């Protein structure tokens, strides 16, 4: 079958199946009319409203949110330190030193003051994979932190870097500002929409501004494939360190 013929045949089969069942549903609706309104609704073709009664907005204060975020990260075996905004550069330097590592990758948009002296830095423009592989660690910013699940979200912007640089090095230091921490996952999705919508736009334009690349990170890489024993560190970074900036 040619490519477009397969496409048409798949779509045609789906449409035929859906049409066939509309007739069945019409019969169901007819019988339901004699029964209850609830059953009739159940038989309606398209659910126009998705019932979104789950927790969308968090209820915690900023401090509680941050505490929860730290607690959940630590449950994943991530190492977390907190610092004040003016202590950030020092905190980064301390983390790098404590890691005992020398060579670090930094995304091109990482603030210059984060590049602590005394270490070898590789600034990513278009680094070769083998160079990234050679690095001992990586330092990045992030787009958002989700307290409830202890998740760090990267959109791979200039300060977060290309996906490969936070993947190959064995040690990842991520800087999260307290203002970036939301309580629930739906609040992260709200932030994505808000960062996109400026003024009135149609849906297609909104979709254009949604992130094209996202990596949600919940702790260092892990597996439980052998007898369900959790082993930290498989292919992704074995160590995840987080600095939470109380701004």
């Amino acid at each position, binding site marked *: 079958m040619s490519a477009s013929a397969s496409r048409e045949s*798949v779509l045609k089969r*789906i449409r035929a199946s*859906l049409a066939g069942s509309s007739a069945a549903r019409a019969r169901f609706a007819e019988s339901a009319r004699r029964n209850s309104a609830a059953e009739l609704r159940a038989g309606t073709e398209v659910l126009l409203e*998705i019932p979104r009664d789950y927790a969308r907005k968090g209820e915690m204060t900023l401090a509680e949110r941050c505490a929860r975020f730290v607690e959940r990260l630590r449950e994943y075996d991530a190492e977390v330190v907190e610092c004040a905004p003016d202590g950030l550069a020092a905190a980064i330097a301390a983390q790098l030193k404590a890691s005992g590592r020398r060579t670090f990758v930094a995304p091109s948009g990482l603030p210059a003051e984060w590049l602590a002296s005394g270490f070898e830095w590789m600034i990513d423009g278009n680094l070769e994979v083998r160079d990234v592989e050679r690095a001992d660690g990586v330092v990045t910013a992030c787009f958002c932190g989700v307290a*409830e*699940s202890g998740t760090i979200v990267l959109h791979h912007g200039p300060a977060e870097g290309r996906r490969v640089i936070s993947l190959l090095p064995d040690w990842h230091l991520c800087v999260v500002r307290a203002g970036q921490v939301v309580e629930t996952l739906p609040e992260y999705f709200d932030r994505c929409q808000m960062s996109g919508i400026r003024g009135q736009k149609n849906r297609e334009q909104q*979709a254009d501004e949604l992130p094209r690349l996202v*990596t949600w990170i919940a702790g260092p890489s892990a597996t439980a494939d*052998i007898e369900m024993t959790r082993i930290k560190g498989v292919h992704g970074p074995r160590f995840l360190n987080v600095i939470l900036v109380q701004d």
Partner: protein
Amino acid sequence: MSAVSDHPILDPALAPPFPVAALPVLRNVQLRKNVAHAIDVIQAKRARLVAEKTDWQELRTAAAAIKDETLANLPAYLEQFEERCTTAGGQVHWAADAAEARRIVLEILREEKADEVIKIKTMTSAEIQLNPFLEDAGIRAHETDLAEIILQLGQGEPSHIVVPALHVNRSQVREIFARAMGIKDLSDDPKALTAAARNYLRKKFLTVPTAISGANFLVAETGGVAVVESEGNGRMCLTLPRTMITLAGIEKIVPRFADLEVMLQMLARSATGERMSPYTSLWTGVTPGDGPERFHVVLLDNGRSSILANKTERQTLRCIRCAACMNTCPVYRQTGGHAYGSVYPGPIGAILTPQLQELKHAQSLPFASSLCGACYEVCPVKINIPEILIDLRAKVTDQERRTAGKFTDPMYLGLRVANLIFSRAWMFHCAQRMARIGLRVFTRRDGWIHALPSVGAKWTQTRDLRGLPKQTFHEWWEKTGNKRTRESGIEEVEAR
């Protein structure tokens, strides 16, 4: 080693019926122990993390509604996904069946001049039996998920959709790795075994330029694809190769980017008992400078469109492959996955496999359940599996009724006779009396029947039967109850 080398058949067209396939497993004590241990661990973690979500039921309702809306409007969402993905630099292919999907993947790989390919765990590729097909075409497929490596190197078959090697224990893994990787003094510590896999694969990740993945979600609104994983092997495959092929069932669509806020809260909790899996990746087409230069999506039908026709059965396609149903299933716990004769085992397999086969194969699977309903209770997208099982049982029975054997099969004859007897009271009473006399010989002093001859043995082989009581309720009523009522007729009137 028997757990791995028994070689189960997971092609529904060739696999023996469930009761036959289950027997060797039931006799394999080691395998049952491995399965039970793994399931106990997952179940305990899952129970704790689901309980912590106070809005779990609301999430389930939303997730089911999102999937229902998707399926009711599937053509529109598929076309929207295709359009958005293409705009973003991806190329979308449509495959009506397994053979076509395999051919499309092979053509892309030939164009890339690939002789090997790295893979992220994808059940869809197992469904279409892609690896042996590529092997025959001279292309080596390297699985990169730890469990999948264990199975590939040990020539085993998956027995679970999330932790496919849960039936293999550490000493078996050690044996497989030591042999296949040529490591002499490998310990059976999971940490050492994991490290061995990491070293074994590192070079493959850095050198093989083509990769194949599955998809957890396809986002119609943006054309994005999401993959959820733990080890980072997924991120390697998604990021390092030059060309990336994603194989996804047509039901993997979610309409909006924000719908992931529901799905991502449920999937990891339900699957592995984690708040979120370590890595969830989403990418949209091709991003210059970041990741593959060429990206293909193969949308696979392979029997799915026919499942849409019936509204009850359609629920099957809500599935997000979390495996909570098999982890909770009392049948799966005893038999493990191989008995289901399909890459999709457990309760979801029992409804999905026969439907994907359009009931031409795997007809025994809808009967591989006690209908206890535990699977429905845990399902994050509220698939009423028992309801579908019963529906499919009816279909299988209808199918059998149309076959020539219906006049000779003792079960059909028996049911016909029963049908006749149950329709007339005098025949029913008569049959009761005859059964009582007939069964008296077999009833032991303890009131139980332990063994019946001929067809009846099928029942008593595995369970005892209560002997019939000395009188039926009707008889007792005639003798005592009815008389008493007549005597106390006045009270009865007053009571009214």
